[in-house]
């Protein structure tokens, strides 16, 4: 039997205020379902026969089921069998947490995630050592790479069936742990921003005046969001140890005398903002940092999640090797080099 794959497709990502304040995209439910079908087709082509799927009420599962039944009516079997996880649906992030947890305990070989940075973060918080293959269907998407989902599915299939060596098939990733009063309360995959707004509100960040501090696991000038600020200052790769920390200030004070530089950065899709930058430096792994901001809210991967006051003790620690992802590029290069897709897939023993 073949390895089992988990799929977590978030139906409610990419619905936030950035569609109004920054013309961000909306990926329709039918499109998300089509992505799942594309991934399923690629997985099946690699020999995956069974997939666990997070149930949801957003309609993705219903569209996918239509695709499956249509294929069955044709007498084709292009897809693996789908097994919805037996769990209640709340329509909140708790569903993702619970699904990732269940899939980990069920021993899936990898979890394919459809969502934005927030969805991926929720999976990482509960998937333990299970590698994740991310597909961007969210707003900000600094973490999941932009790629045709069929390829992500293919790479995942090749990786979990053991045809790509593990050291090539999977990559290690960094994360930042956010501790409140000494306890890890949240994590971030890309960035942690401290802003002065002390309410979560519509979650997204689009008012640079409130930005104060930024901590990133990697700084890539090609990505969107808060980490773009760091990426445009001093690039840090996903692979190297440690990240970057940036002190931000109001751009109005961006005069020569104040020592603040004004940076124009794409902080959300279509939204170029002037951000005042006071200074920045490398953030070494494993060292807790206490932010200077005493009260405000903590935004994780671009969304306000936690409001805190002067009474709360906040610290941030970057961790290398925090979780694993499928190295899609590496898998496909390997597949090409070794002509992995030239014959019929060899049957593989299930690991469940």
């Amino acid at each position, binding site marked *: 039997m073949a390895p089992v794959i988990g799929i977590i497709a978030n*139906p*409610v990502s990419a*619905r*936030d*205020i950035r*569609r*109004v*304040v920054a*013309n961000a995209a*909306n990926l*329709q*439910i*039918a499109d998300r379902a089509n992505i799942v079908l594309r991934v399923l087709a690629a997985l099946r082509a690699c020999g995956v026969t069974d997939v666990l799927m997070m149930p949801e*009420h*957003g*309609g*993705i599962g*219903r569209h996918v089921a239509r695709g499956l039944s249509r294929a069955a009516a044709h007498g084709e079997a292009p897809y693996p069998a789908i097994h919805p996880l037996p769990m209640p649906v709340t*329509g909140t992030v708790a569903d993702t947490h619970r699904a990732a947890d269940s899939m980990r305990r069920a021993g899936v070989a990898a979890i394919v995630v459809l969502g934005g940075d927030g969805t991926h973060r929720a999976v990482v918080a509960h998937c333990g050592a299970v590698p994740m293959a991310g597909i961007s269907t969210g707003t900000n998407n600094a973490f999941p790479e932009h790629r045709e989902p069929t390829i992500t599915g293919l790479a995942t299939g090749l990786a979990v069936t053991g045809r790509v060596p593990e050291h090539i098939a999977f990559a290690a990733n960094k994360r930042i742990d956010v501790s409140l009063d000494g306890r890890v309360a949240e994590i971030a995959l890309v960035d942690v921003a401290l802003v*002065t*707004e*002390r*309410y*979560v*509100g*519509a*979650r997204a960040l689009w008012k640079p005046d409130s930005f104060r501090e930024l901590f990133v696991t990697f700084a890539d000038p090609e990505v969107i969001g808060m980490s773009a600020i760091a990426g445009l200052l001093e690039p840090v790769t996903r692979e190297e140890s440690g990240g970057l920390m940036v002190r931000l200030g109001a751009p109005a004070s961006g005069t020569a005398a104040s020592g603040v530089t004004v940076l124009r950065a794409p902080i959300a899709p279509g939204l170029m903002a002037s951000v005042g930058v006071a200074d920045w430096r490398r953030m070494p792994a494993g060292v807790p940092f206490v932010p200077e901001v005493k*009260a*405000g*809210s903590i935004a994780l991967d671009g969304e306000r999640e936690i*409001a805190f*006051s002067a009474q709360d003790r906040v610290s941030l620690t970057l961790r290398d090797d925090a979780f694993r992802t499928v190295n899609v590029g590496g898998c496909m290069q390997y597949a090409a080099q070794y002509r992995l897709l030239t014959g019929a897939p060899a049957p593989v023993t299930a690991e469940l």
Partner: protein
Amino acid sequence: MTDNPYPLDKADLLQAYRTMRTIREFEERLHIDFAKGDIPGFVHLYAGEEACATGIMMHLNDNDRIASTHRGHGHCIAKGVDVHEMMAEIYGRSTGACRGKGGSMHIADLSKGMMGANGILGAGAPLICGAALAAKFRGDGGVGITFVGDGASNQGTFLESMNLAAVWNLPVVFVVENNGYAESTAMEWAVSCDSYIDRATGFGLPGVTVDGTDFFAVHEAAGEIIRRAREGGGPALLECNMVRFYGHFEGDAQTYRAKGEVESLRANRDCIKLLAQRLTETGIVAPAELETIDREVNALIEDAVRCAKAAPLPVAADLLKDVYVAY
């Protein structure tokens, strides 16, 4: 002394709390009095959904128009309709907002920009397109907000109105108050494309989903959407995910809901409790200040009920009045 972390000053925060409390108290009181048989007809209660009406309406002035639904008490109160007149209307009195001619489902006050609760689901959407068109012709920056439940969002009027608003680029905000139930039918079953945002996208409107039990989330998102509309950015859709504490109408046994659902919602997703918690934990507002508001609201509703009960009923001559302006 703590500085205010919120986008509203303290007076506005207290006003938001007062509005939400007033809606809640109004509805809770109707729930009790209806069960006693004091109230004719039928009523649909907004309890649990207060953050939505309040968070949106705080961005509006009397020049902005709203078209409400059958579950309209909350919208009325948040838009500034007089609570005494509302209560008198629900009691069918001549002192009511509609002089006893409309009842719970038709409370309106055009002077406040409230174009009426509506007994026909989805009917408000075309009307608000007209209100927005009028505002556009006048050039007064007015916007129109139409509320629709998750059920009525399936009405052709609602869908046609999104198209018309987009074609005419009207300053309209379509608010879907998604409480999960169309009367007794689950939204998941009844809405084909599973997403209001996708429907809006289909008409070229941006759509935003917020947690409708979080006052600040609604307030912030609505603020941006309304500002966009005022600035000529065109129509948009706002979906507020919220919870209904009572049945579709009073007397609904709600056997279609899961056991413990309502109790759990009241414990964990009560928008007023959540707001009170935020306000007090940040030290902006002292618990005693909220208690004072609670008492005042309680007294207001008590007085509204007392006045309504004491008010005269419409008389025979009123039967024939106001069918036409002139006939």
